[in-house]
């Protein structure tokens, strides 16, 4: 074999492997995966020049046009409080306390990040609809539930995104595990 052929083979393979590894790492990345707090992941540098190349790439894939931390914080959960993937055929109790922000909302997405079809056309629960913001519960389930209900559409895997707008601390710190809602599976 001619020496230049070996260089071409290794060069092309190297480029393809490197680019492929980057794409695969971004595709498997979670929205805001830089910090994990219980089942939630978050990041503070979305939309800023200080964001790492990896954060920037994952946010562009999973949550493009995300606002900077002083305007909104995003917390994403793909697992429950026991660390098990969120399953659209199961029922979960999401329980929270007062969230230090002007307003917040909890939205259910499929893994690519789109809203999930359901007969009730309910896609989120916002703070304005919570009777007691200091102690609230949302039931996430495929079938209709009494109280605040977020339908799963029976999809295999779903994610929950908690948006907190105008956080009290200007987005400087993360919500603690105690301030973030728990996600407890009640049955399938």
């Amino acid at each position, binding site marked *: 074999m001619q*020496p230049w052929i*070996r*260089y071409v*083979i*290794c*060069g092309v*393979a*190297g*480029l*393809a*492997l*490197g*680019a492929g*590894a*980057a*794409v695969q*790492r*971004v595709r498997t990345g979670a*929205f805001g995966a830089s910090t994990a707090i219980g089942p939630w992941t978050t990041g503070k540098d979305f*939309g*800023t*020049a200080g964001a790492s*190349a*990896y954060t*920037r*790439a994952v*946010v*562009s*894939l*999973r*949550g*493009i*046009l995300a*606002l*900077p931390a002083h*305007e909104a914080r995003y917390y994403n959960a793909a697992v429950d409080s026991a660390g098990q993937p969120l399953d659209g055929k199961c029922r979960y109790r999401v329980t929270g306390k007062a969230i230090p922000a*002007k*307003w917040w*909302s909890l*939205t259910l*997405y499929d893994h*690519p*990040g*789109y*809203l*999930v*079809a*359901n007969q009730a*056309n309910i*896609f*989120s629960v*916002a703070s*304005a*609809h919570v009777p007691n913001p200091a102690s609230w519960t949302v039931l996430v389930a495929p079938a209709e539930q009494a109280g605040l209900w977020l339908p799963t*559409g029976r999809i295999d895997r779903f994610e929950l*995104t908690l*948006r907190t*707008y*105008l956080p009290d601390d200007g987005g400087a710190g993360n919500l603690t595990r105690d301030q973030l809602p728990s996600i407890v599976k009640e049955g399938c």
Partner: protein
Amino acid sequence: MRAWLMPLVLGFLLAVAGYVTAMMQFPQVLMGFATSRISKAAGYNTLFASPMATDKARAIVRPSPDLAYSSCPFDLVNGPVLVDVEPVPAPYWSLSVFDARTDVAFVRNNLDANNQPIRIAIAQDGQPVPDGMQAVRVSGKTGIALLRILVQDRAQFAAIDAARKKSNCKPLS
């Protein structure tokens, strides 16, 4: 085997280069797709008022179903683009500007603005903007200006929709 040593070193170096290049280019490529998809609704340099997001929405990932979005995909190739936002009857609204790398070049909400209009000129370095206009300088020629409006009750949407359509986005010349 020795004949493969230097080619393998080259392959390793190009793998690193390929990884870094792909990672760096990802946001710009996806932002380009997003800008292009949004522009299909009404074109560039004009503000398009999207309906409330449902499971049918595919223009942008992770849309908020609590927000009404009006978006202006901009192209500065012929000069600055002016964005004029009129207040809307909602507890929260904001204007943000994203450049081609997905960086936020500008964000202001109704509380910052005391519920007064927001008027900006999006421009690249070196492009003159009208006196009295706040210049928002961006890198790259394209990007998206986005108006977010909180809709607490969908029964309020008609009034909010009418009010948000008083805002506009247009080229300076």
